[in-house]
Structure formats: structure tokens, C-alpha cells
């Protein structure tokens, strides 16, 4: 090989890496963030990473260090994933162009999970002057290929999709995140459909990203799944969420089950979180969207190592475990999510029923079309469902928590505690397979989980997992 070719290659590669632009790296660090490559390094198993597109650093309008992002595949705890991070420090970031689409194709073909660090403001503003064709190039469309948005859409409900938002994620970057099963955000970050310049251009109002779409607001409205302190915590959370998509051979029993006694002797006001902690493997409960629609808890947990998706009413919430329209949406999405990834569902029921918002904004008994969403999702699930009625199950509440429960969608096992209300209003009650003591419950569930065997993934994607 000619000597200058080798030098050219090494030089080009070198220019793309972090050390070639110390000022940009210093700026990133000063703002409390990791660089795009540092994030991926922290995520992937050391030595497993393969970066693609490293040399694609030339744009029509001049030299850039990356195509707006860095694209990798590698392993996390020995399991293959694809991972990408936008590089906000480099001309405002971008999408990683054609390589993001390529990553998604690989993920689809090999059924690899995807982890995306998605901060940035959509397509690079500099590309606006070239419309049409330029946009297509940025989308990563090439003959015979698809763009990355549709690549990601095809993955929703097929492989686990995890987004990390650490910084500002607007426009197309918010779209990338919104396609994911789980959005993990760091405190102080912002997510929005249109960023401050767009809002200023449209409405003439000056507003900061964190006024416009603070993740603390998103935590309340269901716009994100997990809010964490900083980027290292976000990366840990991403690894943890990913791990729930695999079963462990065994797991530790809960250390303290004494809370059961309080539940049994309570007047129905107890903390469902503490009940769950006494039921699942010690320290294994990870709640998703905890501050949104608080009357229903959606969580991943383990039972003797096996992952279960938990739905549970929270009597401590303002509406005492009632299923509001938001709660119904929260359940529907979570059922789809578990079903996509073969995760058995455990539903712990104690609800006074479903509620609809009236004209005064008050919650009133009744159902709307939102409540039909979990009912349909349950009806079309293929993963095992186990239900435990702890207290009330009034009206359509039980159906929103575990489906209608006739031939097509019967739970594998329907348990009740002695505290379960049995009455005309509690429609579910006559369908119990057994009434068990709280301390017997875990073992009953474990028997079912052992019986249904190892997790099986659907051979085909049944339905796209809903983004909402």
C-alpha cells in the first residue's frame, strides 16, 4: 500500500475522534455531560464495540467531525445491542445519517435491542437551505434502503427500544425517543416537538428549552418513563431496563413480608408499592412512569429471577386506585410492551372502578374509549397473565386491569386474597381459581411461571407497540 494512503486513512480517522477537538470535549464536560463516544463506551462491554461510519464526516457545506452522531454495535452484559448517540457538540448534532438507518436494519434482522442517546434539535439547521433531496440524505434514505424513522417504527414492538435523553431533545430527536419503549431522562433535560427557535419563529415568544419542555413536566404527564440524576445514572438505568428483557436463573426472596399484615388489617388504605416489594425478588422492582396516572403502577420486577410486568392499583393515590383515562392509556401501552417482549404480566387488583373526566374536570364513574384500550390489549395478548384481587374490583375496573376474562383472554390463574370484596359490583370475583393467603401468593405465582416455561418471543410482530 502506498504510504500516503495509510496516512490519509489514519489522519481522517483521527480527525473524527474526540481528542482531535479538545475544545468541544471540554465544553461538553464543563456542561456536565459525556461526549457521544464516552456514553457508548460506558454502555457497551469493554472491547465489544464496533463503530461504523466513523469516516463519514464530510457534509456538503464543509467539514464536520461526525454525521451528527456516532453509531455502534456491541454487547451489554454479553448480549448484542445496537447503540447510537447524537453528538450535540458537533454543529448541533444530527441523526447519524445513513448509519442510523443501517443500525435499525441490523436490529430488525438479528432482533437486537436498540439503545439511543437522543439529544439534538432535529436535522441540522445548516441543511435547511437545501430542502428536499438534502433532507432525504439526512434521513438516510438511499436506493433500496429505508430511512431511519421508518426503520425505527418497524422495530417498535419487535425489539426492546431504550432512549436516553440527557440534554435537549427536540423535533426529530424527540421523535426518535418517542418511538422507544422506555425513555430515560436526566434531570434538567428538555424534550419537545419544536425547540425554542421554532417557537420563537412561530409565535414570537422567547422561551428556554427547560421552560418549554422540561423533563420534570414530562415525568408528570407521561412523556418519559424514568427520571434520573445524571448521565452515569441514565446509563445504569438503561442497562437495568435492558436486563429485564432476559430472565435470570434465580433471584432472592423478599427480605421482609411483614407489610402483608398491615394490608390485611388496613381499611383498604395501604401503599401498593410496599405490598409489591414484599411479593417480588428483593430489590427488583423498577417502576415506569411513576409520577403519571399514579393510581396504577406499571413496573418491571423479578420473581425468582424471572421478569414479570406488574400492573397494580395504588390505593394511596388521589383517586384511590381508580382507573382514570390516563391510567387506562398507561395500562394499554404497558400490556402491549410486555406482550411484544414475551414478558408475563402480573396484575394486582384493588380498584373502585373506572372514571371519566366530566365537564368540570372531576373524575366520575364510567368508561370512555380510553378504557377500551387496555381491554383490547389484554384480549390480544399472548403472554401469560396472573391476577390477584386484593380488595375491590368494581365495574369495568377489573376488565381494565386484566381483560374481560372469557375464553379468549382468560388469565392463567386468578387468585384472590381473603380481603377481596365479593359483591354484585365486583364482577370479577366469581372467577377466582383460588383464595390464598398473602404469604402463599408468591409461591403460587412462581409455580405458574415455572409451569409456563421459559420466555418465548412472538415469531412475528403482532401489532406495533403504541407510543402512547
Amino acid at each position: 500500500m502506498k504510504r500516503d494512503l495509510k496516512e490519509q486513512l489514519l489522519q481522517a480517522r483521527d480527525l473524527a475522534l474526540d481528542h482531535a477537538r479538545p475544545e468541544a470535549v471540554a465544553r461538553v464536560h464543563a456542561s456536565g455531560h459525556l461526549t457521544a463516544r464516552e456514553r457508548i463506551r460506558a454502555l457497551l462491554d469493554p472491547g465489544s464495540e464496533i463503530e461504523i461510519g466513523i469516516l463519514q464526516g464530510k457534509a456538503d457545506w464543509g467539514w464536520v467531525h461526525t454525521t451528527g452522531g456516532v453509531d455502534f454495535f456491541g454487547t451489554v452484559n454479553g448480549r448484542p445491542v445496537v447503540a447510537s448517540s447524537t453528538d450535540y457538540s458537533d454543529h448541533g448534532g444530527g441523526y447519524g445519517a445513513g448509519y442510523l438507518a443501517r443500525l435499525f436494519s441490523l436490529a430488525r434482522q438479528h432482533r437486537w435491542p436498540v439503545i439511543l442517546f437522543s439529544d439534538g434539535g432535529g436535522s441540522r439547521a445548516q441543511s435547511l437551505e437545501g430542502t428536499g433531496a438534502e433532507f432525504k440524505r439526512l434521513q438516510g434514505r438511499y436506493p433500496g434502503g429505508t430511512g431511519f424513522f421508518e426503520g425505527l417504527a418497524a422495530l417498535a414492538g419487535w425489539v426492546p427500544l431504550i432512549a436516553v435523553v440527557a440534554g435537549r431533545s427536540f423535533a426529530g430527536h424527540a421523535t426518535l425517543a418517542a418511538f422507544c419503549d422506555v425513555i430515560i431522562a436526566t434531570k434538567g433535560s428538555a424534550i419537545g416537538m419544536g425547540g425554542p427557535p421554532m417557537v420563537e419563529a412561530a409565535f414570537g415568544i422567547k422561551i428556554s428549552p427547560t421552560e418549554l419542555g422540561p423533563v420534570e413536566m414530562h415525568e408528570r404527564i407521561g412523556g418519559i418513563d424514568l427520571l434520573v440524576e445524571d448521565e452515569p445514572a441514565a446509563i445504569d438505568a438503561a442497562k437495568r431496563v435492558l436486563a429485564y428483557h432476559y430472565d435470570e436463573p434465580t433471584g432472592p426472596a423478599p427480605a421482609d413480608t411483614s407489610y402483608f399484615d398491615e394490608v390485611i388489617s388496613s381499611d383498604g388504605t395501604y401503599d401498593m408499592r410496599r405490598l409489591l416489594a414484599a411479593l417480588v425478588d428483593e430489590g427488583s422492582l423498577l417502576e415506569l412512569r411513576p409520577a403519571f396516572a399514579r393510581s396504577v403502577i406499571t413496573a418491571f420486577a423479578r420473581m425468582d429471577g424471572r421478569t414479570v410486568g406488574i400492573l397494580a392499583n395504588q390505593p394511596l393515590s388521589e383517586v384511590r386506585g381508580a382507573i382514570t383515562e390516563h391510567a387506562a392509556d398507561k395500562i394499554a401501552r404497558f400490556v402491549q410492551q410486555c406482550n411484544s417482549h414475551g414478558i408475563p404480566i402480573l396484575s394486582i387488583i384493588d380498584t373502585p372502578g373506572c372514571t371519566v373526566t366530566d365537564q368540570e374536570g372531576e373524575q366520575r364513574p364510567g368508561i370512555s374509549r380510553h378504557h377500551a384500550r387496555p381491554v383490547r390489549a389484554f384480549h390480544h395478548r399472548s403472554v401469560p397473565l396472573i391476577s390477584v384481587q386484593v380488595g375491590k374490583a368494581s365495574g369495568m375496573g377489573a376488565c381494565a386491569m386484566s381483560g374481560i376474562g372469557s375464553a379468549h383472554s382468560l388469565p392463567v390463574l386468578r387468585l384472590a386474597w381473603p380481603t377481596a370484596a365479593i359483591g354484585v359490583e365486583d364482577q370479577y370475583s366469581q372467577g377466582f381459581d383460588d383464595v390464598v393467603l398473602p404469604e402463599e401468593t408468591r409461591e403460587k405465582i412462581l409455580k405458574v411461571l415455572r409451569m409456563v416455561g421459559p420466555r418465548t418471543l412472538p415469531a412475528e410482530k403482532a401489532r406495533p407497540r403504541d407510543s402512547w
Partner: protein
Amino acid sequence: MEARLVNELAEARAAAAAVASAADSAPNKLPVRERIARICDPGSFAEYGPLAQEEGADEPMPADGLVIGTARIEGIPVVVGSYDTSVADGSQSKVNQAKLDRLVFFAVEHRMPLVCFVDGGGWRKSSSETRTSRWLGGGTGRMGALDGLCELSGLAPSVAIMSGEALEGNADLAMLAECVIATRGSSFGASDHLMSVEYRATRGDVDILVETEAEAIQEARRYITYLLKDAPSGEPSATAETIDNILPDNRRRAYDMRRVITALADEGSVLELRPHWGTSLITSLVRMGGRTVGVFANQPMSPILGAIDSTAADKMARFIELCDAYGVPLLSLIDSPGFHIGPDAERDGIARHHVRTLSAIEHRDVPLFCVQLRKAYGLGPLVMRGSWGHLPPDLRLAWPTVETGGMSLEGAAYLVKRKEIQAAKTPEEAIAIRDAYANTLRERESGVRAAHNFSFDDVIMPSETRDRIIRALENAPRIQRTEKKTYLDLV
């Protein structure tokens, strides 16, 4: 046949008929037999269980308060049912619940559309069983009515007609049906908390609001026929000629997109779904040359000027799924500043809701034709244009009033010329810099020039549009699904 048996049967029938004809006196409501007669093709109704009634009832209970049977609508085999509020207030009982289960089961087994009048409801006090064991369908061991409605979703259309009050289980039935048609003044919900259909329509729970039951029946017939069957031909609208003059000359002035839809569609064929919710986006089933088309269109006259907010996104996604489930081609009419932005839009969750539209477009396989009328900024209209998803749009048309660009041209100008604008001495000067550059962009790629780089298949006059769409429809065979693709979302 033994005369005693013949007489017994005749007497039972006469008793059922006598009470049934004692018409429900509520205003605007048709007697149950009249409803059935009107919704079915003449002579096509075959009743199941006319003599059913609960044992030990104190008074005669014709059909036990729920008339069911098979029939045809425009030749399409359907199942129909109607609760009868003249019989024990249309309450649910052990017997009529079994009839409802049978009705839904029939629809699922034979993939037949279902229409049910759902007024009445609540468990009959005299009924011998608690509703517990019946309502959930466990009793039949096969499929309960509500599970059956879930199964039917995406398999065959289901329509609930609500006229009067629908309580408890009957309200649940409506909320699980694919389409809810209600007469004004009706209400539904839990018995002590009925909410008006007018209010629920603003929340997306009602598809079609009408004045009378006769109209409700007409719309139910149209809904089912449109989704499942094309007509051989159709007449142009009486307003077709006006279409070249609907868009104002001033590009900043709004207009009513409904006028465009009416002018494009066959005369009198527009069936708008959910007009009172997500009002910045119109979703209508229409006929064009007899073929059914699902039109989704931005409404520039809406308070947010045709932007796509969270509810409009939900409405669009669900409508695309509906049309896709039944093989109905889609037509998008685009004039939108994009997905809604700003603090209010973010609080409504647009950052997550908007992806539902992208997903629906990606997973469709029905043809998509699009016409861009004026502006189309950002990702939202890109989705409506089908410039997105693995399937390219089947037709990309624009009117000469089109403005292209990835975002508002003023917005793009603001971003590109930001430094100059911020350095401007007066606000007027800043706006002048922005607008001058926006005009440069407009000159470059708008109007007829939009056709040059082949980002549209053609730029045509509004008055040429109907014919072009009809030709495209003729060249696109209607998808006939042999299997259910997926269930439909309801929100």
C-alpha cells in the same frame, strides 16, 4: 301438527307483537321493530329468539327486551340488535345477555358487521342471576359479548347507535364498538353519572352526532357500506365547480377545508367522523366516483390553524388504522404548519403522541394519495404526504398555491439569518430581513416550480383534482383482507 301446539305458538307470537307495538313514547325514538325494519334491507331480517323471555316474569317481556337477528345492509350480511326500552327499560337480564352473546359470537364467527341500538341497560332487578356470571361472558364458555367485540375489532365494523339513555353495561358496549352514532340529547355512562353525548363528542367518544334516529340509521348504513363495498359510480358534487375559488388569494387567510372535501367528493357522500374532537384535523369517509376513500385533512380554520396537536394526531392515527383494516384507500389534503409546538402542546404530550401518526403510516398497506394545497411544514405534513414509511405514496399532487420547505419559510429564514436579524436595529428591520429571505426561498421552490425537482408527481388545478384521484383509484385494486390485520385502537 296438533292444533293445540299451533295455537300456543300463535298466541305467544301475538302476545309478543302486541306489547312490542305499544310504542316507546319517548320523543325522537322509533319503536324497536321500526328501527329494525329501517336499518335492514327490506325483508332481509331473520330474527333469533323472538319468544325468549325470562321465566317467572310478572308481565310479558317480548324478546326479553333485546331483538336480535341477521340481515343485510346494501346486500352485505350483518347482524343487528336493538334493546327495547319499552320492555323493563331495556335492562340486561340473564336471557337477553345470552342473546347478546349469540349476536356478537355470530358476527365474529362469520365476520359480519354488527349494529346495535344500545339505549337502556342496567341489570334487571327481577332477573334471577346477578350480572356477575353473565356479563363477562364466562357463562357461555365461548365468548362473552365484550370479548367478542374486542375480537371483532379490525375484523368487521361494529356500530353502536345511542338514542336516549344508555346505562352501565350498555354504555360499556358502546365504548367497545368501533363507531358510535348518537342522537342529540342522548346521554350515557354509569347510572348516577350520565354525561351528554354532546360533551362526550368533544372528547372523541362519539363519532357521529345526528338529530333523529332516522338519520342515525342512515349514517350507520352508510358507515358499514362505505367501509366494505364500493358503488359502481358516483355523481360530482353540486359544488364541484367552486373548487378553484375556495382558497383565498391572500396566502395568510384561512378557509374551510370542509368546502374542499365536499367539492371533491361525490354529491352528498361526505361522512365525517369525530368532527367535534381534534378539530384541527378532519377525518371523513367519502365516495369518489363511487369508490370509498378515507380523507384526512388539515383544517386551516381551526383555532390552531391546521396544526396537528395530540388529539389530532390520535385522531389521524386511528383513522388511518380504520381505513387500513378494511382496505379503504387514503387521501390526505394538506395545509398545515406542522405538529403543534409551544408549551401548551408539550404539556398535552405531543412529543410522544405524534409518533402514533408515523407508526400508522408505516404499518399501512392501503394506497395513499396526497394533495398539498398550501403549506406543509415539518414532520407532520411529511407524514401526511407519505414521504415517510416503507411504502411510497401512490400519488403526490400539489395545487399551484403550494409552498414547500421543511419548516415555515419565515421560520427557516429566521434560523438561517438569525445573526443578521438579531443585529437589526429595529423590529421592523428584523422582520424585513426575515421576510426578504423567506420570499427568496418561496420563489425558489413554490408554486408550479415545486414540480421541477419531482418532489410532486404533478401540479394541477383544484378543478382537475377529482378526476385525477378517481383515475388513481381505478388503477389501484381495492385490498381485500383475508385475515384480520390487527385490532383497532379506539382513541
